[in-house]
């Protein structure tokens, strides 16, 4: 391999935040996100002849990171499936009606989060059940559609929709409660 390490290091500096952020959102754990990020860059090094100077290098790296994360989670899930207490798609009806309590459409354009609200939302996102967080992140950050998510996670389309819906409702309810506390 005749790759230039200095050039690769520049590439690494350029994309490390994107790779790490993607991994962290999907995995929800710092140490695992760092491990997966390292593996993504090592793979990039193995394909450096094709990636160096390529305009699609960022997209390639993001896809590889996402696939590594999903593979990592699948291995983890398989390993602990027996002990897992992940909820099935027929979870309780506790969340029924949540969506009806949110703001009217005219408030959408003006909705800008404060620093406090962003922090609250970040924490709430991390506290979501793993299946809900993963589906939500794949939909809203990785731009996969429901069918792709169901296929990648090997679950039914209905479960994906339910998980994403419940995750959205839970996050927005937290946000709304905080605003009510602050009298906003």
């Amino acid at each position, binding site marked *: 391999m005749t790759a230039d390490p200095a050039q690769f290091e520049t590439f690494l*500096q350029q994309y490390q*935040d994107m790779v*790490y*952020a993607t991994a*962290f*959102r999907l995995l929800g754990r710092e140490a695992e996100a760092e491990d997966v*990020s390292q593996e993504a860059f090592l793979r990039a090094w193995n394909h450096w002849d094709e990636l160096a100077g390529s305009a699609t290098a960022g997209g390639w790296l993001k896809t590889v990171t996402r696939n590594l994360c999903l593979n990592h989670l699948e291995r983890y899930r398989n390993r602990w499936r027996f002990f897992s207490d992940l909820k099935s798609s027929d979870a309780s009806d506790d969340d029924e009606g949540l969506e009806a309590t949110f703001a009217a459409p005219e408030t959408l354009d003006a909705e800008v989060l404060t620093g406090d609200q962003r922090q609250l939302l970040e924490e709430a*996102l991390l506290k979501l059940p793993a299946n809900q967080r993963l589906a939500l992140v794949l*939909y809203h950050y990785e731009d996969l559609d429901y069918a792709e998510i169901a296929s990648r996670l090997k679950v039914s389309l209905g479960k994906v929709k339910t998980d994403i819906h419940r995750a*959205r409702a839970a996050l927005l309810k937290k946000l709304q409660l905080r605003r009510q506390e602050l009298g906003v």
Partner: protein
Amino acid sequence: MNDERDQGRGLPGRPGTAPALRQTETDLLAERAHRVLRQLPARRAPATLAPRVMAELARRAKLIWYRRPWTDWPELMRWLSTFLLAGIVAGTLRLIEGGWSATKASPSLAGVEDVPAFLSAAETCTRSLLTVAQSLPSTWWLVGGSAFGIIALGTLGLGTAAWRLVRSSAQ
């Protein structure tokens, strides 16, 4: 976001709720969630990531060729190893097919006569164990099997309880 992916794919309506209204609620929820989620800042990579990656690359670069992945071996070595592997496979197949009797006839490899003797000893041991097992009354089997089952289930149950306890305390 104009969430086109949500169009026509809303969740089934609750009893007594008009489907159109239900769809609108779901769309609004999706749109709001997308707007607020996209406002979250991307988490920055830790300062240790880049040095870690470069250190790993340096470590791999120092590895002697045969300790690297096969795809990174020198081309000559890859060809040689391919031929060598093919030779080993072909030789093994030949040995299995027709070479066994010839090997036994060779005085220099007389030690292979020990293999049937060893197999015979193993067979004798197995037969003895089977005889002992057959002579045991069925009650013993029942008690032994039950004890084994209880121990196995107990271990599994304790393991599961411990796992869930650790997990719930971590959350």
